[in-house]
């Protein structure tokens, strides 16, 4: 039989009624609170019995954040000593006490003081941290929603944007909900306290659990929709969070951490949680796997040229007559689990000098949910701000777009087949830049999955 169990706490620290009620139920089931972690609270096995719990909020200047039992906290324990109340654990300013007597005298005897001390903890800690969270989440949500609504049609359906906007909006709703519930309670509790009545606090742990579950699912989907470098960054950020939190919990538990170190860790992790999706996007790992290309050396007009000889599915010589010996073929593959991105280039050994050139990216995706994300990437090119639709039947595709510059169609095509999107930059003959029906048929033959 397990001696310890962990339960997630979905209640804000201001909900003393909810927290103490929950702890009493757990004790009645045979689980006594052992340690308050950030998300998971640790319980140890006991004989099921009635245990009374009470919560006290210490001000920050009384080392409310200190994991070490400070002189101030010891003074409180000294006061409790004769009353049967004993300290169990703490979380931020919330100090949890238990009493196993049948009908103990209350730990707090004056509702006015109790409401004031909770409000002080709220103003010193919960409110500022929630405001910071609200500002950051608000800015991020604004950024995401505005880019969705001000972008063109295709950026509107960028999967990652929708997920990020959705997640930040949920965070805002959660914070606003928590603050609103608290302020309604405080307004009524202040009045009730004058009559000697302590109004119980309220929270919605079930709803909070649903919100957290949705956040988690959306976050996982969002990570899956990122390129692999960003996936690595997101996962390493998560790992850093767990590592720092784990060490901090260890420090708290073993009382080897100062009050300010605890506050710094909490603040750092709070910001980290909100910012690490941003970090994952912005600090995209630019280190590309070094690819070894098969090469050959060509002597041309008295000079030696080293050319890549990668295999690419569509070559310029499939579409027109050229000397393949003087061509440079490069294929870069990016793993993007569960998708695959292939960037193919073919150009003359002199490079981009008006000679025929081929550059195309292939996005292969197993699930339709990636389609919009890749289409968004393919169609939103800096130099081609607009696009027109072509007849997809000719290309045996679901949809085909031709990108435009200054309203003029360019030789840049985005072709959508089932499970594959191709962005094709093609330059064949300068005099006649339009693709013939035969050339299109060849492209389809070579690139259609």
């Amino acid at each position, binding site marked *: 039989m397990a001696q310890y169990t962990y339960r997630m706490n979905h209640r804000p620290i201001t909900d003393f009624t909810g927290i103490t009620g929950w702890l009493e139920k757990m004790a009645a089931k045979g689980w006594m609170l052992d340690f308050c972690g950030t998300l998971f609270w640790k319980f140890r096995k006991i004989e099921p019995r009635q245990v009374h719990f009470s919560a006290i909020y210490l001000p920050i200047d009384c080392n409310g954040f200190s994991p070490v039992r400070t002189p101030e906290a010891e003074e*409180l324990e000294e006061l409790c000593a004769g009353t049967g109340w004993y300290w169990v654990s703490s979380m931020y300013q919330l100090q949890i006490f238990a009493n196993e007597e049948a009908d103990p005298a209350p730990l707090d*005897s*004056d509702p006015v*003081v109790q409401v*004031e001390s909770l409000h002080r903890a709220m103003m010193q800690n919960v409110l500022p941290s929630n405001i910071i969270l609200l500002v950051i989440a608000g800015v991020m949500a604004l950024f995401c929603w505005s880019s969705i609504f001000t972008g063109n049609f295709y950026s509107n359906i960028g999967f990652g944007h929708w997920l990020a906007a959705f997640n930040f909006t949920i965070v805002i709703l959660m914070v606003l909900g928590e603050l609103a519930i608290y302020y309604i309670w405080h307004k009524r509790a202040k009045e009730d306290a004058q009559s000697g009545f302590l109004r119980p606090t309220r929270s919605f742990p079930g709803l909070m659990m649903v919100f957290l579950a949705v956040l988690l699912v959306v976050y996982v989907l969002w990570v899956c929709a990122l390129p692999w470098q960003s996936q690595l960054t997101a996962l390493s950020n998560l790992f850093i969070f767990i590592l720092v939190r784990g060490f901090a919990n260890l420090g708290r538990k073993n009382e080897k951490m100062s009050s300010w170190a605890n506050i710094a860790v909490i603040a750092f992790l709070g910001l980290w949680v909100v910012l690490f999706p941003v970090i994952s996007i912005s600090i995209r790992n630019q280190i590309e796997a070094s690819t070894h290309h098969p090469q050959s050396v060509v002597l041309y007009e008295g000079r030696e040229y080293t050319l890549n000889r990668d295999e690419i599915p569509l070559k310029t010589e499939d579409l027109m007559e050229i000397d393949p010996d003087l061509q440079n073929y490069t294929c870069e593959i990016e793993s993007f689990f569960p998708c695959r991105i292939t960037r193919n280039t073919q150009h003359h050994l002199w490079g981009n000098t008006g000679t025929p050139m081929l550059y195309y990216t292939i996005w292969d995706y197993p699930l339709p949910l990636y389609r919009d994300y890749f289409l968004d990437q393919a169609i939103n090119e800096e130099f081609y701000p607009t696009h027109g639709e072509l007849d997809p039947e000719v290309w045996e595709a679901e949809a085909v777009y031709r990108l435009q510059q200054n309203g003029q169609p360019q030789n840049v095509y985005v072709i959508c087949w089932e499970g594959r999107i191709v962005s094709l930059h093609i330059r064949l003959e300068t005099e006649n830049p339009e693709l013939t029906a035969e050339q299109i048929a060849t492209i389809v033959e070579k690139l259609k999955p």
Partner: protein
Amino acid sequence: MPRQRFQTLTEQMFYILMALKEECCGTDIMERVRTITEGTVQIGPGTLYNLLDQFQEEGMIRQTRVEGRRRSYILTDHGLAVLEQEYRRIQTQAELYRRYF
């Protein structure tokens, strides 16, 4: 109407300040309040702890000694003034009551 901080005192605040007429530590305060009020008022340790902190912050009491986990306090002049103001308020209430009935 919301109560201004210590402009009026609750019963618990009043008796704690009274108990600190002479220097004493937290556990003694609880005992002294029980004696003064003949057991009708009991101070919870959480309430006492928070109030001692707030009274100190407002300069109504001051810490005199620290002996291990025990800290002793005594009422300051400002604390005595607040206590007397509360006493006069209660007295006025009592007199008005007597006059009316």
